[in-house]
């Protein structure tokens, strides 16, 4: 049978193990769970896109791994009035094509973000992240003034997320070409983008060195960086174990032992910026009664869940803010006390407890099952329902549900980003239906009236106390974000805002 023989020859040819191709220089590969949506820093609202682009683009300011805001393309800044900020820019910075960076680029970037119809006729989806800013004016080659419509003390906290784009280049090549062939001022310059597969960048030799506040200052140490798109967690882990990638993002806690068992790998974790809560619908019984909400808080043993379900990789919080935020108020947590919980339920008129469906999405399933068990201990007959977020969300907004576990991101660590959308009356993230004149007033004070950082902090800290007292939601924890990292990687540590900045990273053999 000639055909059969042909078949075997072909098959053996295919199955033959070929040697991989060598890659010159030091190339660090990051396995990331989603591809960039675009390479235009003005046209997305997507965490992974920012993580990738931040290696090719710089912003006026940046954050240290400890989340402190430090100068980057700006050398310094001052607030000359309630609504005007002056930024003094760094001299000697060049774009990847050699053109000098100037105040005109900053003006162009700001206008492209906040004015309507500036990106291929559409408005930047990042407008809302810079919204109170109405204008930017170049005062001279290296000085720029930002003007806000209202006093906006949180401006600096949002600026690390706004990467500056090159005016001369975007105007010459157009938005669409720029989105696939970008140049920036960052430590790495763009090489190629195989969509859905990888983004390749290499060291920019004339880099000005990055923020002086984060040493060492100078060009990147790596020759090349590749972000490889590996959406499936098991595949990402396999690629890490096979040595094909050096950093794997988003490792779930249950896979930690597998990484620790491999001597070539290590687990790196950092406290993230997402606060997790058990939220309740406070617009109707039983959770319209603060005593019932307090009973739920007493019924949950947060420390036990962190230790046994989350592998110890989370920090309990007393209110909404993360301990990493300068606005964090260190309040006493509500102790685990099932007897007190039962007493409060009886006091509120539920001596026999009540039936409850606890909603969650898949990542919180295990947590929800444990919490439901704890609630049953105090007489609340809880069962868990797992949803797809897109299906659950409209039901929450319609106040159709009773209680659920969810989290909210706060990458800026500024209260504006979490305390306002989560609990101010009528806000889009206020699923619990909480409404308090006092809370709204404190938010207004912090946003528009407070003149000094101290008075702003005082307002937000008072609001945290109010929440810890009224408990429209039971604060649970801020979880760690976990990375699997090759032991060859040095000079890199994960950042709470999930950026992966590789400027200072290196590979050793």
């Amino acid at each position, binding site marked *: *049978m000639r*055909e*059969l023989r042909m*078949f075997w020859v072909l*098959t053996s040819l*295919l*199955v033959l*193990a*070929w040697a*991989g*191709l*060598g*890659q010159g220089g030091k*190339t660090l590969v990051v396995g990331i769970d989603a*591809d960039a*949506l*675009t390479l235009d820093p003005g*046209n*997305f*609202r997507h*965490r992974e896109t920012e993580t990738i682009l931040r290696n090719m683009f710089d912003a006026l300011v940046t954050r240290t791994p400890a989340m402190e805001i430090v100068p980057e393309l700006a050398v310094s800044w001052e607030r000359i009035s309630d609504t005007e900020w002056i930024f003094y820019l760094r001299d000697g910075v060049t774009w990847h094509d050699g053109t000098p960076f100037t105040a005109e680029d900053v003006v162009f970037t700001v206008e492209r973000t906040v004015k309507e119809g500036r990106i291929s006729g*559409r408005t930047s*989806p990042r*407008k*809302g*992240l810079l919204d109170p800013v109405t204008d930017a004016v170049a005062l001279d080659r290296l000085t720029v003034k930002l003007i806000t419509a209202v006093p906006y003390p949180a401006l600096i906290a*949002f600026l690390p997320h706004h990467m500056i784009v090159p005016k001369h280049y975007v105007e010459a090549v157009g938005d669409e070409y720029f989105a696939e062939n970008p140049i920036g001022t960052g430590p790495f310059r763009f090489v190629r983008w*195989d*969509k*859905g*597969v*990888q983004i*390749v960048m290499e060291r920019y030799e004339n880099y000005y060195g990055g923020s002086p506040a984060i040493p060492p200052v100078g060009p990147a140490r790596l020759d090349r960086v*590749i972000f*490889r*798109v*590996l*959406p*499936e967690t*098991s*595949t990402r882990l*396999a*690629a890490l*174990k*096979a*040595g*094909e990638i050096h950093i794997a993002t988003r490792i779930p806690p249950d896979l930690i032992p597998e990484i620790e068992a491999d001597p070539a790998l290590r687990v790196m974790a950092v406290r993230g910026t997402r606060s997790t809560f058990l939220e309740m619908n406070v617009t109707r019984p039983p959770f319209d009664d603060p005593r019932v909400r307090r009973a739920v808080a007493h019924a949950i043993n947060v420390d036990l869940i962190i230790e046994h379900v989350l592998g110890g990789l989370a920090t309990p919080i007393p209110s909404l803010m993360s301990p990493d935020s300068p606005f964090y108020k260190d309040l006493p947590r509500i102790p685990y006390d099932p007897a007190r919980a039962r007493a409060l339920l009886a006091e509120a008129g539920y001596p026999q407890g009540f039936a409850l469906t606890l909603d969650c999405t898949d990542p919180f399933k295990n947590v929800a099952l444990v919490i439901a068990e704890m609630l049953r201990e105090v007489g609340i007959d809880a069962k868990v329902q797992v949803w*797809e*977020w*897109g*299906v659950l*969300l*409209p039901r929450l907004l319609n106040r159709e549900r009773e209680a659920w576990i969810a989290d909210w*991101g706060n990458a*800026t660590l500024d209260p504006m*980003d979490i305390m*306002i*959308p989560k609990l101010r009356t009528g806000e*889009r*993230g206020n699923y619990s239906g909480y409404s308090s004149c006092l809370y709204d007033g404190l938010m207004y004070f912090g946003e528009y009236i407070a003149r000094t950082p101290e008075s702003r902090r005082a307002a937000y800290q008072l609001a945290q106390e109010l929440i810890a007292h009224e408990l429209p939601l039971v604060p649970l924890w801020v979880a760690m974000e976990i990375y699997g990292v090759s032991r060859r990687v040095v000079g890199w540590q994960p950042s709470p805002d999930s950026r992966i900045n590789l400027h200072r990273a290196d590979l050793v053999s």
Partner: protein
Amino acid sequence: MAGYLIRRLIQAIPVFLGVTFVVFLLLWLTPGDPVEILLGQTGPITAEEIARIRREFGLDQPFLVQYGRFVVRLFRGDLGTSILHRRPVAALLGETLPATVELTLFAALVALLVGVPAGVIAAVRRRSLWDMVGTVVALAGVSLPGFWLGLILIVVFAVNLKALPVAGRLGFGTGLEPRTGFLLLDALLQRNLPALQEVLRHLIMPALAMSTGMMAMTMRLVRASLLETLGQEYVRTARAKGLPERGVVLRHALRNGLLPVVTALALNLGALLSGNMVVETVFAWPGVGRLVVQAIQTRDYPVVQGGVLFYALTFVVLNLLADLSYSFLDPRIRHGRGE
């Protein structure tokens, strides 16, 4: 023949309209707001901003208006703009389509190269050890989920043996410039042998994970069909003429036995093309399946529509090809129909 073709293609138009209408309706009924999902949780977002984006993508219009606009645009060859990617859907499909088609064709080739010979052996050596082993393997092939098989392949061949790359379509540093998007073709056209090798190395595992079902089905079909033809009188005649057994099986029986296989193949190919979302996700394969999965999760309506339209088109074309190939393989059908 040409008239038949044109009539069949015109008949396909209502199919497309029906499919898109049902999908449009299903998406409409599924809860979830693309704008909410797009904006995520970063930063304060005003109601005006949400309204502005909804207006920009026409999401503030009633259902029938949205569908009507979609159909009108469709006839102009415009599939709309992705809400998530903010780029034309046609461009997104154009980028992902070659990856999916290449993988599917390669998987189908693997399935046929294994399935047909295995089926022949099983039929000729009926009830032998080969036949039984083949039956068991085929049963396993149909039952194994592609997701699981894919991960097992990765662990064995990529992690432990380090013989094949874990995932993806092409490493960096091959110097291959994707022009057609079909990387095998690109590598051949550019006479880049190392790149060709790399492309093949990346293709093997996802193709295997995808092809087991089709492989098993092909094997069983060939076996059954060949057993039937082997019992026919013309086969007995051929044997009586003293032809060698190999010639009898391959030249006389197999050609006739392949007829039902062709139909099954065409339908299977459609299922392969549209059903490889799981394999594409496991192997980080940048194809239509992954694009559509992401679009469904983010309620990116225009992309889901475009993807479904592509799948519908695939089935229509493959069915047509199967019908046409009948008349090609079997002269009796050609003459009987008189077209």
